């Protein structure tokens, strides 16, 4: 059985990977995926703490996070498609009609 600290290290690593992805990657879809990795790191933290504490609050919160992440992804992809129809590009650097 992995200990709580091992779970926490894993989730911190995942969170760091996701955060790095948001800053490094230059494709809107990949940035979205990086944000999903961040949210999954959060889920892992909640579940690990919930198990270690013997309480269900953490698991319940994870259900909400998963649901909201799905809703957010749906809206986000729709917005990205809307922008793609204008510019035929997914590179955030190419959107310059507003000063970024």
């Amino acid at each position, binding site marked *: 059985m992995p200990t709580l600290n091992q779970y*926490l290290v894993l989730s911190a690593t995942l*969170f760091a990977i*996701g*955060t790095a992805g*948001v800053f490094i990657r230059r494709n*809107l879809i990949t*940035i*979205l995926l990086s*944000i999903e990795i*961040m*949210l999954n*790191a*959060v889920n892992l*933290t*909640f579940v*690990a*703490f919930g198990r*270690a*504490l013997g*309480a269900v*609050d*953490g698991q*319940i*919160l994870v259900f*909400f*996070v998963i649901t*909201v992440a799905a*809703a*957010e992804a749906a*809206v*986000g992809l729709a*917005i*990205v498609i*809307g*922008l793609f129809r*204008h*510019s035929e590009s997914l590179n*955030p650097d190419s*959107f310059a*009609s*507003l*000063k*970024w």
Partner: protein
Amino acid sequence: MPPGITFGDFYNILPELVLTAGSLVVLIADVLLPRRSGGWLAWITLIVIGATLASLVPFRETRVEVANGLIAVDQFALFFKVVFLGAAALTVLMSVRYLEIEGASPGEYYFLILCATLGMMIMAGGIDLITIFIGLETMAVSFYILAGFIKPNQRSNEAAVKYFLLGAFSLGILLYGMSLMYGLSGTTNLRVMAMTFAGQESDPRLILAVMLVAAGVGFKIAAVPFHMWAPDVYEGAPTPITAFLSVGSTAASFAMLLRIFLEGLPSMKPEWRVLFEGLAIVTMTVGNLAALTQSNLKRMLAYSSIAHAGYVLIGVVAGTPRGVAAMLIYVLVYAFMQLGAFIVIVLMRRQDIVGDELKDFSGLHVRHPFAAFAMLMFMLSLGGIPPTAGFMGKFWLFGAAIDAGYVWLAVIGVLNSAISLYYYIRIVVFMYVKKETAGSEPTMSPALGIALAVAVIATIALGVYPRLLFELAEASARTLGAAAITTAIR
């Protein structure tokens, strides 16, 4: 703790239920009513907002926790709910003509405005990480869609993408901080959490959690250095949405901030006080300096709203009931003056002219004296000049800072107000001194006229007669985790 939710719980969240049902009515009415009936939908939306306001009346004196401590119904939440609903009503009033000009479908638009308002109301009442998170996302997802609502306009789309990416990113940071808070306390309820943390040695992991949550909230209130999205989103989004975003979303995020830090983490007060002190100073200064060079009015107001978030943060640093009361006052006063300024920008919108450049305002007082006078009042109020509400707001905020021993923070605030006067007065100079009238003819409609009149009257009346507002705000501030606040005062 007894499980289950009773009938009384449902009664206590009556305003939220009314708003939810009302938003569905708007969505159905959009299908049933013939096309091109956006005006009717706007009036239905206003009736829903009015009904929600009316359903708040029985809860003037209520102070309870609903559903095993998921939501608090108290005067603090009530004050914010009135601000949100008022801001939503003014936003609807200024949207009618704007939507006609842009040719956007009004049904989902009004529905999403009501959804965002519902999210804000839950954020203001939430005293549990779960409810706060759900409220925040109900609001944020609605705003992502609203920011990109003018689909044929690429700038609107870009604004939506930028807001969405940074919003989702900040959500990840906020949630990670919340997960640490949960893990270290073993509860998601903020009040239970405060009791668990009371008297504990400060844990480095808890300090990390405080920083992560502060960063997540910092994104939402557009505090420097988390403000990069604000100018772009404010400029690209439809003008009424920009107005609602800058007033409603910011106010709700401040409510969330106060709930998390004053109710949940009073034991960490020395730590987060230092954090918000730095944020407040940087936010005020950077916001005001960046606003100096803007020629686009929406962009300038974006930077000015960043600066105002910095002023309000002074109240968090003070952290006393007086500081919280000052924040409540400022949030309400700011709602009227900021929305008012955006109403004038909507007035300038014509078929072919966006009307948000500074030069569009040159000689406005010849073309439309009332619009120019209203804008003059809003600019004076934003700058904090005496007969207006903005002065009273700043007066209480800086007073609370001095009261709590932060004299130099108040001094920096006053210096910043002086800087901000430069760019507010510049608009007044364009309207009253410049002779050429190159810009568009402002077009008034009944809805816009009502909205503008309400904003002007409130801006002046709250400046001339602030006593009632102050008493209300102070009573509301006292209900915010009263025990927690008094124990944390040194």
